[in-house]
């Protein structure tokens, strides 16, 4: 396992563990303060399982007032705090620090209000993403952002990471579907940003907090907008003889003015692996396979599917299947959604990367990945949210072989650097966390990072809230680890990823 530099451990805090636990038991129900190793163990990692660290203590507050008092106490006593939702994040954003109090928000698990008149849901942050849709679907509504882990990930975590999903091209990521939050700052201040009225006046703190990876505040309530479910959803499964053809097809579909609800590409390696795993009926002889999904009214979907079909054919599609029923459509997706476990069959371990690139650079980037794969002698499979340029290469390696892990991490870093080089971003939806922290200087110069750090200092002068995440320590550009999966198993193997 790669070593990871984290903020210096405060030995005075470590030695005061019992006193701090006792103080916190004075603030919240004593059974909600966890301190024994057995109790702390479940919190030692999140979805980035390559890194593990037991926290000093875990607290499980039940009210916003308790969150405020805990933060105030920690702020006064200079104790580091790490907030945690469902712990499904893939970049290590809620990985504990040795001398931190971890605030586990699991008890904030109720939906507060379903408001159809204003088309929104007010909820506590540890309600799962999918539970919001479940709460409103009987009236024909849903919550649009759908990260693949939506069955388990919390809405508060979605806000912290600005989570996306396969439908974000058309419907946006969390930030575009969020109306308001209640948040507690490190000094204990409770405030609200946004609300049921759109575009609150003044600086857009709602936008700033979204995707700030738990560095600026602890979210205690979330208001999201809900949409009326589309009447018809249809998908096409298209095979291409080359990645270039698939890439051109994506660009032309967009240029023609069609905005699909989702547009996914997998390379041959992943198509075969997922098809073997889930019997999804994929064209395994194709070099690239694409799922294009449209939603809307019947006429609209028919019009767009027809146009997409025409464009695919112009780009040499080798096979094309249009879903005839919702069951068939879900079958198209079943393989794609099972990419994680399917890859587990191919190699003992793999790392899942998350880079963003201009759509038109797909072929170039995949060629580069293939070149790097030969250079590092490690196989790779690629999944791509083609609609919004979000690439997820899966690098196969063997974690028991240190050299293999080292090569894998270097390979991954090379891919992300290339994404930045072609005009993309280090992370499209998984967040920076500890995973890509040291690569931030690939995307930003010192002035850019300094500006972001001054914002952090403005809200948390002692840098106590989730320190060591997102921004490089000592600004060194080392290559760090990625989402590491052993034997097809993550910490929650049954949760679909990316």
């Amino acid at each position, binding site marked *: 396992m790669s070593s990871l530099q984290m903020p210096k451990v405060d030995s005075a805090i470590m030695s005061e563990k019992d006193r701090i636990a006792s103080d916190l038991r004075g603030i919240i129900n004593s059974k909600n303060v966890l301190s024994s190793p057995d109790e702390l163990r479940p919190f030692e990692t999140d979805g980035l399982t390559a890194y593990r660290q037991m926290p000093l203590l875990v607290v499980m507050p039940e009210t916003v007032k308790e969150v405020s008092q805990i933060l105030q106490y920690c702020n006064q006593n200079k104790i580091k705090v790490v907030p945690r939702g469902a712990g499904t994040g893939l970049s290590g954003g809620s990985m504990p620090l040795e001398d931190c109090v971890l605030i586990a928000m699991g008890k904030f698990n109720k939906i507060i209000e379903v408001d159809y008149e204003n088309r929104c849901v007010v909820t506590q942050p540890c309600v799962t993403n999918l539970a919001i849709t479940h709460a409103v679907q009987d009236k024909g509504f849903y919550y649009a952002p759908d990260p693949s882990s939506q069955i388990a990930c919390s809405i508060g975590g979605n806000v912290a990471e600005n989570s996306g999903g396969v439908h974000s091209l058309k419907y946006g990521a969390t930030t*575009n579907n969020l109306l308001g939050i209640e948040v507690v700052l490190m000094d204990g201040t409770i405030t609200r940003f946004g609300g049921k009225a759109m575009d609150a006046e003044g600086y857009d703190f709602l936008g*700033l907090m979204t995707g*700030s990876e738990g560095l600026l505040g602890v979210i205690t309530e979330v208001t999201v907008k809900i949409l009326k479910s589309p009447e018809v959803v249809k998908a096409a499964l298209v095979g291409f003889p080359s990645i270039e053809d698939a890439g051109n097809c994506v660009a032309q579909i967009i240029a023609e*003015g069609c905005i699909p609800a989702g547009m996914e590409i997998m390379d041959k390696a992943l198509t075969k692996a997922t098809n073997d795993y889930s019997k999804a009926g994929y064209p395994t002889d194709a070099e690239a396979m694409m799922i294009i999904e449209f939603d809307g009214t019947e006429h*609209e979907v028919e019009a767009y599917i027809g146009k997409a079909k025409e464009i695919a054919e112009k780009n040499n599609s080798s096979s094309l299947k249009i879903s005839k029923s919702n069951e068939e459509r879900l079958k198209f997706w079943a393989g794609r959604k099972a990419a994680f476990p399917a890859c587990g069959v191919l190699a003992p371990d793999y790392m899942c990367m998350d880079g963003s690139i201009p759509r*038109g650079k797909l072929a170039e980037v995949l060629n580069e990945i293939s070149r790097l794969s030969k250079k590092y002698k490690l196989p790779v499979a690629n999944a791509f949210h083609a609609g919004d340029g979000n690439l997820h290469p899966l690098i196969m390696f063997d974690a028991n072989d240190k050299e293999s892990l080292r090569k894998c991490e270097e390979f991954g870093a090379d891919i992300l650097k290339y994404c930045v080089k072609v*005009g993309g971003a280090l992370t499209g939806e998984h967040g920076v966390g500890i995973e890509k922290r040291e690569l931030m200087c690939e*995307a930003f110069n010192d002035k850019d990072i300094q500006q972001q750090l001054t*914002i952090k200092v403005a809200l948390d002068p002692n840098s106590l809230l989730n320190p060591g995440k997102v921004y490089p320590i000592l600004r060194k550009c080392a290559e760090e680890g990625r989402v590491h999966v052993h034997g097809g198993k993550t910490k929650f193997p049954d949760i679909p990823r990316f």
Partner: protein
Amino acid sequence: MSMEEKQNSQTSLDFNQNVFKPSSREEIVEIVKNCYRKNIPLEINGLKSKNKIGRNFQSEKTLDLSNYKGIIDYKPEELYIKVKAGTPLKEIIEELNKNNQQLAFEPNDFGYLFSGESNSGSIGGVVSCNFAGSRRFKVGSVRDHILGFQGINGKGETIKSGGTVVKNVTGYDLSKLISGSFGTLTILTELSIKVLPKPETSKTLVIKNPHLKKALDYLGKGLSSSTDPSGGVFYPDYFGKNFVLNDLTHEGGLTAIRIEGPINSVDQRLNRLSKELGLLDQELSILDNEQSNIFWNRTKNLEVFKNLKDNLLRIVVPISETLQVIQKFKNYDIKYFIDWGGSLIWASFDQLNIKILNEIKDIVKKHQGYITLIKVDEDLKASADIFTIDPIKYKISEKIKRSFDPKRIFNPGKMYTGI
């Protein structure tokens, strides 16, 4: 020659002038560094289409960005355009038109209100004000379309955030923070903006109806239906006559709902919408693509308030509160129309004074909304808060301001005293 003079002599900038009109980023950096050193406040302007919005403040110098313009990079297939901040919005829209694309947030044109003719301003101004048009409830606000920016902070340092790709969660999303900050945090230099294909067609269902309650009912049902509208407005009787269109003979109050997309789909959805709303043929008209575009342009341009002598307030409340808020306004002589499917109220109050304004503010606040003074007379402007803020957010805003502009040289006091 002092060090400062030496630095200044590197460009042709004359620091004795009161209005700087830079055409390069280097010049802007130099101006800001100079002002930072000497504590000189700067008023930042684009095309001055919205510079009357906000508090009056003292500034020794003006930074006019109208020469800092031009399209840097436009990639229609990647759905983005990268422009210099002083670029006129009009120029950007014309360029996008060539590829049948648009800025989906259809920003308001305040030119008609302030000067009686179109002045859609510069893109930097549009982003700095974050006033989105009728598609707000469907596509988001201006800030939702900003992919990244480059700007100069109050120390003269060039900073950037985001990029040109739509999915990017690398670091804090500063693009959101600078949207709607009225030039108080950075001087924007470059903006990367998401563009979208224009819909194949746009049609509008216009319902003859003078009653607000009924209108809000239509809008609520329409927006909650699967017909996916992209605009919803209500104009009371006194504004009906402003919309003389071939397909619209009715001159009274009206509720209008816009449907966009492929032609077949639009017709199908319009048909369904009028059935779902239980409308009779004689109650409705359908505006075709051209007339529909004229109608929504007039709405976006606030044309019913063209050359308005009086004041104009922008009031945003949750849709559920609109009816009660307007009912409480009945005590005042008011002219208004409603956008954003029911949650944005553009209102002009007769005889507005500080007492009435405070009463209005109380009403809006009680209904979880907020109010921005877009146009008020100078007396009122001097005594009233243009934007509203609570003490906690004021404190946070102060800290954020300082993190970008430590000496408060950018538009100081434009939003709030001390910021």
